[in-house]
């Protein structure tokens, strides 16, 4: 039986059988679902509790500006000094007392309350009063038809974003959703590489400090041991994501049918094909709702995104995991690993920031170079793909990534072979390079 297969099998089963893995795998989708649904649910609850605000307007000019909404109801009163309003048992949230013409006397208004005034209420009151004062002041200038002029000035421009090609096929697009989709994939790659790459390092270090590896090298080649570990651990990750995807789908489906929340089922179903992506997309769908979002989601290049995601995912993981394996084999203790981890984390965080920066200008020089550079391309390219990237760039970037990944595996295997059996002293970078030639 192939020995590497045996190693893969062990690395996989040992991890999948762990209690912590099972618990995390089952709980995570519920936590994610809760992150989506609890805010929506809370928002629906808030609708029911409308608070009463008493309004005393000595001038009579401003009361009309206050409109009841789902949070506050404004009730005109005659006497703001009535102590009943300020008792702790009072049903009145606050009392707005307008004592003077605010165009002349700026501090002629006060909000009284028996508790702290809500920031939302304060800013609403300020907005209403400022608007009225502005109108009053403009009217005082005596220009004819000023009201009409103001109406004209108010109009808002609405920009439609449509993606079209040379043949004239047009698609409604939504920049926010494209960004969200790209970022979800980017974060998935980032998280996966960090957590499972770290797991590879842990596991290599465990075998080294355990000295079990002295036993192993007499039966398997160090390369088989390393690759078996890298592949086995990645399978654990794939399985976890598969379970999460399926569970999230089921939870979303059940939640939609049972609670009938505003999340558009068809939209979240469409988002489903993007793995974990459904979460944020469902939020987008839930908040704006409607066909526009649905059209924008279905307008995304899902096949291209899925394919690229898989390729970048595997390439990025191989690149980093093999590096982590080499680090794990070189160090003797957990603490020593940090000096080698530091540059890796810096590069990955740089990649993440480059990805965020690339969102502003998805075809700019930063986005272009960062998505070709193999250490950052898996992270940055995924942000760009929803915005259409030329095929040659994708191919070049992938070719560079895979070439570097193979080189990294080759170099790491050589470092691993020597490092895993070296005890007692902390290796320097120079020594690690020497091991590659050994």
């Amino acid at each position: 039986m192939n020995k590497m297969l045996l190693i893969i099998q062990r690395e996989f089963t040992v991890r999948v059988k762990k209690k912590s893995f099972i618990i995390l795998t089952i709980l995570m989708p519920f936590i994610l679902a809760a992150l989506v649904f609890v805010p929506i649910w809370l928002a629906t609850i808030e609708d029911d509790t409308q608070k009463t605000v008493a309004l005393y307007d000595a001038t009579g000019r401003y009361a009309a500006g206050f409109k009841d909404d789902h949070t506050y109801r404004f009730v005109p009163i005659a006497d703001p000094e009535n102590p009943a309003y300020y008792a702790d048992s009072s049903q009145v949230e606050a009392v707005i007392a307008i004592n003077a013409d605010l165009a002349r006397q700026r501090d002629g208004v006060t909000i009284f309350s028996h508790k702290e005034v809500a920031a939302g209420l304060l800013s609403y009151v300020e907005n209403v009063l400022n608007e009225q004062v502005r109108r009053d002041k403009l009217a005082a200038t005596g220009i004819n038809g000023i009201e009409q002029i103001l109406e004209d000035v108010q109009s808002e421009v609405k920009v439609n974003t449509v993606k079209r090609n040379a043949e004239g096929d047009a698609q409604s697009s939504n920049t926010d959703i494209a960004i969200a989709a790209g970022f979800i994939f980017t974060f998935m790659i980032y998280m996966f590489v960090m957590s499972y790459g770290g797991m590879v390092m842990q596991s290599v270090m465990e075998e080294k400090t355990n000295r079990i590896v002295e036993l192993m090298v007499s039966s398997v080649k160090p390369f088989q041991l390393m690759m078996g570990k890298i592949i086995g651990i990645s399978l654990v990750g794939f399985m976890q994501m598969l379970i999460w995807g399926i569970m999230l789908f089921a939870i979303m489906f059940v939640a939609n049918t049972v609670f009938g929340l505003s999340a558009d089922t068809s939209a979240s179903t469409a988002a489903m094909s993007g793995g974990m992506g459904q979460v944020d997309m469902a939020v987008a769908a839930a908040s704006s709702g409607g066909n526009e979002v649905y059209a924008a989601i279905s307008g995304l290049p899902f096949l291209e995104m899925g394919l690229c995601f898989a390729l970048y995912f595997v390439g990025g993981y191989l690149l980093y995991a093999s590096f982590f394996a080499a680090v794990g084999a070189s160090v003797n203790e957990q603490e020593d690993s940090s000096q080698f981890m530091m540059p890796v984390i810096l590069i990955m965080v740089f990649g993440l920031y480059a990805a965020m920066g690339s969102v502003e200008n998805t075809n700019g020089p930063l986005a272009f170079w960062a998505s070709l550079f193999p250490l950052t391309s898996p992270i940055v390219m995924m942000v760009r793909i929803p915005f259409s990237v030329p095929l040659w760039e994708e191919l070049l970037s992938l070719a560079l990534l895979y070439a570097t990944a193979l080189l990294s595996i080759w170099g790491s295997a050589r470092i691993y072979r020597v490092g895993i059996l070296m005890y007692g002293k902390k290796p320097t970078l120079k020594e690690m390079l020497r091991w590659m030639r050994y």
Partner: protein
Amino acid sequence: MQDFFLSAQHIVKRYEQHTALNDVSIHVPRGKVFGLLGPNGAGKTTLIRIINRITAPDSGEVTFDGHAFTADDVMKIGYLPEERGLYKKMKVGEQAIYLAQLKGLSRQEAKRRIEYWFNKFGIMPWWNKKLEELSKGMQQKVQFIITVLHEPPLLIFDEPFSGFDPVNAEMLKREILALRDKGHTVIFSTHNMASVEEVCDEIALINHSEVVLEGKVSEVKNRFRSGLYEVVTTDGSLQAPEDAAFTIEGHLHTANLHTFTLRKAEQLSNADFFARVAALTDPRSICEKMPSMQEIFLQVVTPQNASAHHE
């Protein structure tokens, strides 16, 4: 010409600060137990690691089973490292099967053999326990079983008795001899000199990175014969003869017995010596005081190390 299963010739291994092995050669005869002895830090473990291909020598070569050592040969070695290591969180039985499979056994065969050994060592009830739940001695047993399971022609035990109680150490000793009798070649590294006398056929003593003593245990002991004899008699009047056939080195009187320590003249044979003693007194027993391996070890290593410290 003796049949050597493994020879290491002129092995040199240097580290930055010191030389671990300086022109070391050992010859391990086929089907024998070969003791690799030496004080701490002498270079034994380095030599074993070279034989296991864990590290490469700077110069020198190893011949394995009649041919130059290749990477595939490590498959024919069972190695019990001094610092034991297994997966702590893995169940014992599963772990043994996994490691046996990596050694090339089929799953069924591995399971069959492991059950045989587990029963023999009385650890079958721990099959489904994690390794970390086992006592040190039991972990050692598991490790020993894993080492011998695939029945490799060469077995290397580095300090196999550490952590064992006398009963289990005795059992392990018997198992090692049984393996030798089945034709396995064994390299056995230890500080425990008593076990060397009981188990080893040949030895090499390494001190300060060099082989300072080697050969069959019986020959080595012969070389270190002190020429001292112990004569027990009821008669306390024994005197050294005038022709100096022997001299009296000590005289111990307990109850009715007198124990004399005699030094024999070198040219005299044992038979003549015994006859001379018997003529002078009525001995209860005469026996040559053979040096123990412990004494030989100390005799060889102590002065060398003392001089090394004075340098």
